[in-house]
């Protein structure tokens, strides 16, 4: 189909470990994935199969060895596998968000501003961005008294919710979620499920890794199996 938001063609990825005597670890082999507006595709497969590797490759964080990673960006398709770093940065700013499993804290920046910064690509004033950031953090049960603090001292679950707020506030047409609920309690998981459903309803295309089958069933339209390399051949 041609109206995909994201498509990979023959994507292959191996790691060459030079410090371990040049051993080569093949992980992804001939991945063809299609993702359309408003759908959520869940990556499934055993631990170590390469789900996170695929997701990081989609984001341009890992480099694809072979194949194409086509992203609908500003009205045309760009191939992230060969794109200039400046294009990848623009894609991340406008088109594709990523919620990693762990928040990378920036010294001295408050939780509110971490989230507001992510909103600035879409909102025009810092005041509106901060307002939206505060509302989303509150919805994710981060109390107002924590908003002004840098998240370095937050609990694992709190950090993950700040990370989620940062991912969802950008309103990117494509969103990648790597185990977004791993450190969360049931109440917060329900908030995340609602956020994912609302995003889909707005036409946002989502690729997710969900270890929790209940959440996966609640949000995923389709499963995409990532098979360990030995089985794939």
């Amino acid at each position, binding site marked *: 189909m041609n109206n995909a938001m994201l498509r990979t063609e023959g994507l292959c990825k191996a*790691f060459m470990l030079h410090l371990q005597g040049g051993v080569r670890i093949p992980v992804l082999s001939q991945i063809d994935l299609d993702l359309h507006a408003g759908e959520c595709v869940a990556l499934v497969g055993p631990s170590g199969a390469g789900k996170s590797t695929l997701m990081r490759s989609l984001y*341009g964080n890992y480099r694809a060895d072979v194949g194409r990673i086509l992203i609908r960006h500003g009205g045309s398709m760009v191939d992230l596998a060969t794109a200039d770093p400046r294009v990848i940065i623009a894609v991340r700013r406008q088109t594709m968000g990523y919620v990693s499993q762990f928040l990378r804290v920036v*010294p*001295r920046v408050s939780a509110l501003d971490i989230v507001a910064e992510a909103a600035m690509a879409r909102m025009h004033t810092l005041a509106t961005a901060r307002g939206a950031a505060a509302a989303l953090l509150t919805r994710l049960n981060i109390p107002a008294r924590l908003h002004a603090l840098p998240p370095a001292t937050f609990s694992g679950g709190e950090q993950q919710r700040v990370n989620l707020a940062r991912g969802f506030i950008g309103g990117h047409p494509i969103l990648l979620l790597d185990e977004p609920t791993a450190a969360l309690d049931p109440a917060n998981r329900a908030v995340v499920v609602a956020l994912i459903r609302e995003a889909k309803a707005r036409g946002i295309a989502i690729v997710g890794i969900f270890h929790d089958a209940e959440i996966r069933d609640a949000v995923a339209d389709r499963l995409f199996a990532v098979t360990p390399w030995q089985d794939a051949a």
Partner: protein
Amino acid sequence: MSETTLLSARGVSLSFGAIQALVGVDADLWPGEVLAIVGESGSGKTTLLNVLSGRAAPGTGAVWYRTPDGQLLDVHTMPAPALRRLHRSDWGFVHQDPRQNLRMGVTAGGNVGERLMAQGSRHYGHIRDAARDWLVQTEIDPKRIDDLPRTFSGGMLQRLQIARTLVTHPRLVFMDEPTGGLDVSVQARLLDLIRSLVARFGIAVVLVTHDIAVARLLAHRTMVMQGGRVVETGLTDQVLDDPQHAYTQLLVSSVLNA
């Protein structure tokens, strides 16, 4: 997105006697972009920074700078006064040791104002206002405007050097280990300050650091040097999370949580 580079180097080599400090280095910098040059000590980082900024001449190769009106200047063949003018206005240089840039016998306000005066400003009131404003921007208590830098801490001196550098609104700033030699907590504050000022004013930066975490925090792109050569270059998080070259893998694996 601009398709034209602000600064470009091609085939830059430089030897000191038998030592090849730089071997066939190509580099590009786009407006508003932060480029980190990482590598172990002795890999040629500072030498490259000096060649890019015209402070040292390459043996072979060339460096070009594009002026705001689109003119391409060959950094190493342009007349010395024109290069000095560039350093006083469009460009800035932040040294690891702020004493290299500051005049220790001149007040904090004088140090900041001096660069404006070198650029042609003459109105005392305006200069003092700008100096005060830049002390505030760099988180120095403006009450210290008439104090001498020797009464400042290391972190304050570094912030004063940044104030002095940015007061003329340069488009391009070269930084050599700007957080080197400072305590970790002081480093964090300085990094955050650099990060926000550079983003707010859209300044392009060539940043030399041996600290991968600094590159991760500040740089859009990262260039890895070993033995005077560029062994790997690309998007910062890709270079650090999925390093291709053996040397980059070694560099990344030798730090925790970079």
